[in-house]
């Protein structure tokens, strides 16, 4: 897919997202979790819904890495998901969707 042809939606200013943490935005009626991974200077976006028990909670999870793979841990039962691929890192079958993110002029955009 050509990244320039994506449909970018404006999420919120950079200041709305805590460093090394996440926050939730509503875009087109969909809840999206956006993470400001300041330690590596990267941004990630995923579903806010955790597929384990369908809690709208991933934005409130702690982020970090395992063997270099960036991840988020759901606050409910600490299931962890790769922020790059959305795969469940405990090897369970459910996973999350990830979305392209970019930052321009202090504003965060997501392609949903």
């Amino acid at each position: 897919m050509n990244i320039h042809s994506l449909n970018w939606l404006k999420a919120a200013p950079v200041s709305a997202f805590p460093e090394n943490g996440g926050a939730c935005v509503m875009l087109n009626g969909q809840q999206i979790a956006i993470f400001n991974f300041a330690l590596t200077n990267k941004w990630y976006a995923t579903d806010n819904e955790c597929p384990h028990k369908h809690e709208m909670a991933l934005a409130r999870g702690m982020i970090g890495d395992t063997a270099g793979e960036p991840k988020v841990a759901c606050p409910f039962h600490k299931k962890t998901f790769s922020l790059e691929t959305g795969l469940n890192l405990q090897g369970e079958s459910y996973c999350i969707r990830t979305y392209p993110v970019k930052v321009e002029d202090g504003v965060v955009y997501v392609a949903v």
Partner: protein
Amino acid sequence: MSNQAPVRVVVVGNGMVGYKFCEKLVAKSKGDNRFHITVFGEEPRPAYDRVHLSAYFSGASVEDLTLAPAAWYSDNNIKLLTGECVVKIDRAAQTIATHSGLVVPYDTLVMATGSAAFVPPVPGVEKDGVFVYRTIEDLDAMMSYAKTATKAVVIGGGLLGLEAAKATLDLGLETHVVEFASRLMPRQLDAAGAAMLKRKIENLGISIHLNKNTTHFTGNDAVTGLHFADESLLPTDMVVISAGIKPRDELAKEAGLATGPRGGIVVNDSLQTSDARIFAIGECALHNGMIYGLVAPGYDMADVVATNLVTANAPPFFRGFDMSTKLKLIGVDVASFGDPFCEKTEHDTILVEDKLKGVYKRLNVSPDGKHLLGGVLVGEAEGYNMLLQTVKNKIVLPPNPEDLILPARTGESAGSGMVLPDEACICSCENISKGDICAAIETQNLTDVAGVKRCTKAGTGCGGCVPMLNDLLTETFKKQGKVVRKVLCEHFNYTRQELFHLVKLAGHTTYNEVLKANGTGCGCEVCKPVVASILASIHNEIIAKQPVIQDTNDRFLANIQRGGTYSVVPRVPGGEITPDQLIRLGEVAKQYGLYCKITGGQRVDLFGAQVHQLPPIWEALLEVGFESGHAYGKALRTVKSCVGNTWCRFGVQDSVTFAVEIENRYKGFRAPHKLKGGVSGCTRECAEAQSKDFGIIATDKGWNLYVCGNGGTKPKHAVLLAADLDKETCVKYIDRFLMFYTRTAEPLQRTAPWFEKLEGGIHYLREVIIDDSLGICADLERDMQHIVHTYQDEWRTVVENPELRAQFRHFVNAEASDPSLEFVEMRGQKRPADW
């Protein structure tokens, strides 16, 4: 390899063994595209872990139990057809046909059809409310029927029957077990062991009826009772039949394959049926007159067939299997291994029986005293793995074999994995030897059981060998001269105690500083809250300033609930509350529609607040003098108090005043785990102080101080630290004790487990806390004094600080609250809708 002719493999049955066969064949034929595998499963979903089926009742989801998701099959080029029943084998044409009309050719056919529950032909079995216990659908049906039932009868007192009984008990039903034989688990236990088991199970609240032969079920459409041959009657609302298994050989029989007189598809040592192109594995296979109703032999069979298909030379054979088992029934340890009865073998018996504790152990030893032949363990089965290995590997017994089953003498365990030979099979589900495991630990630098499971697959089946894996890890480390340390996680190669000292010495105040100075990578959900807790214990700064390293509850200063709302628990020191405060609680609850409950900790919990409502709710509570109750923190919770001598006719001291003082002293103090206290006004102990992390009981001379008790999962009574103290000394000792614990405990280790590991026990603790043997008491007191002086109510700080307050919202780009929240009504209040 790839120029070999393709082989069409069809597997009938996608149960545990059918799946394992696919896994083994895929692994063994990697890079070789010869095998085209098609799997038919009659059940509507991919194979799942039947062994842990009962976990479904306690909340495990279908996904949790699934052995591999459908995607795994397609990723490995396996065609999986679920919900598709094979109804015919045409051996001449080498095809199978399914109920929906599919016809599929095969070169090799593998029958893994398992078994069905054996249902005795008792008149009335077809009635509503009669169940078997085998599939997820069976469990769903039982759960929904149990909603209208109050009583259940399980037919069969074997391994499975007892497991089913525990399940119906956990469903809240009055539970009975009916057994035809004169004892429970007749195939595994001797009479004395079974009698002990019976007593233990009755203690769980399950009634046992032995020597009962059911003649018919009573009731019209639905079952209402069992009628027995002795003319007695047992009324019930539902029945679960667990009287044995019946191999599913109907398809094989119809195709003219040889089957046993009592069922099962006859196979040779290569698991070949009477048709050389057809194999049978798992519970449907009859090998040497034996049906194996366990998963491990089935896995072994899967391995034999997969290996045979891939390699032509030196094929392995199935040589029968040991039937040793351990009951998983929670709360009762039962195991039998080797030959438990030795009816036909000459032997000597060693017996240990403790009726008081409910422990029965039997070892059968060869007449020369050199070898262990088998045995039975009831009430305590910790030695099971080691004893089983001793039998299997024919290890020569020590001079006093009774030591193997006598209560362990101080610190010694019943032998460790290291005396086993390298060939000893540790994980029988996956057939992995001790040598394989130790080699993996050494060469791949494994440091924990999770790593061993990942790299060797040991411990991923029934899980029975996991304690042994732990032993092997520890022993291998010791052999390598490595000191075994519980380091935090991959990001910090330090124990919590080491990190605590490093942070304190360097004076770090943020997670990033600590990570930079002492760690690697970007951190994770394990080390972040530990560092947050260490920082809080040392500096006592407001935790809301570093929200992203806090566990969820600490991040929003409230406990998260199902659905994603939060609860509000204001502090009520000593349980003393004013009428105005009570009124305000009611007003706030009404205004925000919150569910109200009196907690077990003498205060009120308001549930169901949305994240953006938390600050205004607290604002209203702060006005009448409430403060945060830290119900969300690994911190001081409550100091429970009885009413004491100000009102009570027996009281000898003012327990409420002391409890209020103590609670106010330690409020906000963060520790490795939560802390609770209690103060009772006399020896009647109405405040349950001896079940707290620190408990104080009034005497006519002063106060007795108890430490390291708790309720919860593993209740522990607190231990007396010092007696007849004045208030001031009592507080001084608590200061020292809490700080000492906070510096030295592991993450999330409460005072009781911490104390259990403390070498020297209470004597050592007294030396440190009372005699100052380490010379640290002044330091401990200073640290605690700092905490007490720097206390601020964190909810007040948040409410008054606009920047911190702004963190409390669901969306950062919209004012809306979370639209996915759903509640239902219950007894006039609300609760979250079901998951």
